[in-house]
């Protein structure tokens, strides 16, 4: 286990106008499973490669257990990495692939063999030790790549989108295996992915990156419930959060309502009081699909919105409704019960749980704080 500290890490390539990684500061604690999440090109893999020592650091400091690592070769950092493409040596069998790194250290052969056997048993690879990578399935290759990292007993494990090349079913099972492995080894792990499902299910903390910088860091559910801007709000969650242009309008007394298209939704009194200073302001109204339900099951006095059903997507365990509200430029997605009888073209009323809404500034896209209990 180890603590990994990044302070103002920047990576600039020769001839590049923009930095690939800008001023990134991050602390990964002992035994933590930190997930670097973001879209392609956001700099997460570059950041990981700088931690690994495969890319030089243009500015800033990297430390592992308080020891500065800038300029230290990859082989001296006591880090193991699992690559997206597995990176197995095609001319070696599984045993040799796993032993390759240990042989470099000059360990006795018996010790190497024992370490390889134990790790192979842990990962269910014992029957395949004599096979070469081309004779293994995708999942088996990924486990060999994992075994090659584990057998070295490193301080830190790095994963660069290791599940991207697997099919959906295998990805689910490998995710569970990685979670179990983390619990068993209690190792510090830094995991890069663009898949928000992997991030939500595996990470103790998620670090969301965009355009080379960190946008938000925190526990998965914290980020899910309290995104700092529209990018995070839309990136996490499947389907993503509904983001609609709206306006906060003042009603009689101190009541406040949200105007979206032709609809005006009255805010609960507690929210109205908090948001009163923002009356008259244009906002982006955010609400997750699971906070929208059909009005037949809604509590009395709930905010109701009349919509037209554009499409119905039955997923088996639930149903997604794509809705259009009068005057709204964007469609609304609602996650409703699997027993929904809604049909495309129908007009239905849906209930919006305004207690779970998020409001964002249209110019800065940052969240407008709403102090409330969920």
């Amino acid at each position, binding site marked *: 286990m180890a603590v990994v500290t990044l302070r103002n890490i920047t990576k600039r390539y020769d001839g590049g106008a923009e930095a690939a990684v800008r001023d990134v500061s991050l602390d990964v604690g002992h035994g933590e499973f930190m997930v670097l999440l973001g879209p392609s090109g956001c700099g997460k893999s570059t950041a990981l490669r700088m931690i*690994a020592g495969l890319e030089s650091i243009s500015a800033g400091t990297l430390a592992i257990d308080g020891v500065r690592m800038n300029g230290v070769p*990859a082989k001296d950092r006591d880090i193991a990495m699992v690559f997206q*493409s597995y*990176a197995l040596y095609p*001319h070696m069998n599984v045993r040799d692939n796993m032993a390759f*790194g240990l042989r*470099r250290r000059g360990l006795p052969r018996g010790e190497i063999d024992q370490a390889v056997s134990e790790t192979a048993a842990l990962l269910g690879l014992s029957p395949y030790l004599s096979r070469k990578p081309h004779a293994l399935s995708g999942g088996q290759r990924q486990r060999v790549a994992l075994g090659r990292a584990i057998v070295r007993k490193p301080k830190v494990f790095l994963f660069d989108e290791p599940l991207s090349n697997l099919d959906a079913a295998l990805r689910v099972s490998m995710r569970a295996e990685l979670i179990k492995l983390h619990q068993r080894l209690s190792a510090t792990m830094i995991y890069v992915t663009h898949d928000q499902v992997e991030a939500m299910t595996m990470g103790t903390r998620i670090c969301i990156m965009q355009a080379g910088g960190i946008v938000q860091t925190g526990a998965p559910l914290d980020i899910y419930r309290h995104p700092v801007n529209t990018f995070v709000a839309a990136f996490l969650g499947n389907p993503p959060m509904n983001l609609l242009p709206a306006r906060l309008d003042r009603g009689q007394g101190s009541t406040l309502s949200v105007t979206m298209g032709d609809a005006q939704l009255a805010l609960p009194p507690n929210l109205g009081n908090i948001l009163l200073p923002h009356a008259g302001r244009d906002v982006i109204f955010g609400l997750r699909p699971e906070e929208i339900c059909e009005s037949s099951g809604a509590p009395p006095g709930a905010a109701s919105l009349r919509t037209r059903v554009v499409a119905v997507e039955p997923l088996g365990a639930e149903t997604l409704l794509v809705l259009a509200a009068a005057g709204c430029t964007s469609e609304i997605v609602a996650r409703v019960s699997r027993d929904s009888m809604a049909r495309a073209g129908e007009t239905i009323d849906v209930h919006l749980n305004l207690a779970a809404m998020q409001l964002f500034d249209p110019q800065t896209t940052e969240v407008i704080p709403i102090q409330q209990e969920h």
Partner: protein
Amino acid sequence: MNVSAEALYVEPTLRSARRPLAGHIARSLLLILLAGYTAFSAGPFLWLASMSLRTTSEISANHYALPSILHWEKFPAAWFGSSYGTYFLNSLEVVVAAVIVLTLIGAMAAFAFARYRFRMNRVLYFVIFSTIIFPPQITIISLFQVLVDYGLFNSLVGLTLVYIAFQLPLTVYILESFFARVPQDLFDAARMDGYSDGAIFWRVMLPIGLPAIATTVILNFILLWNEFLYAVVLIADDAKRTLPLGIQKFMGDQLEDIGMISTGMMISVIPVVILYVFFSEKLIQGMTAGAVK
């Protein structure tokens, strides 16, 4: 739900399978064509092999007949009596040394060009590769003078160095394009496993690059084994002649002895055939590697 590509693949059905007679005719025509081409390609070689075991008088009596008596004694006669043994060993010495050095230096250079970013990378690569455009006739006179100046004229060492120099661009070109296709992750993994760049070259790149290296070994061996122009200009002594020069000299002295000429040619062809038999599988792999992921 994702479905793998294999599950989506459907075996194509040949139209000819639905019309058996047309299929038979098509296959028969194809066989005739292939048989004709095989006869065209292999025929001269088989004829040469046949003549190498017949005497000149037998060949004169019937050019194309198969040997009635196998005159194996012609081979030791050519080897010892006509100095073919000496020419063969000279060729072997020069070509094997050149191919070994070409493979090592060419592979290292190709590895550096393919995997490292440095300031003059593409310029140096272009300079080396551009020398291919110069035919030997342009460089031969200058080379002659250079070898004389350095005391390497009429020496097997000088000839070996010349062979290395003019085959290096092609070797680097073939290997560089192969090495460039090897995924970067393999190198990164080896670096993280603690291996230096040199160790990565020997323990990772060379084994992976074996198909491409086999290709260059075969090509270089065949080209250099049959090379005539540089050898005839740069070698003067009979004792230092390579096989192509030996055959040419033998033809000059014994123009009518077709039987011995054939035997001598067979001696020169056999090593190339043996090399191809051992390396051909790797050659095919080298040519098709990367065609299918």
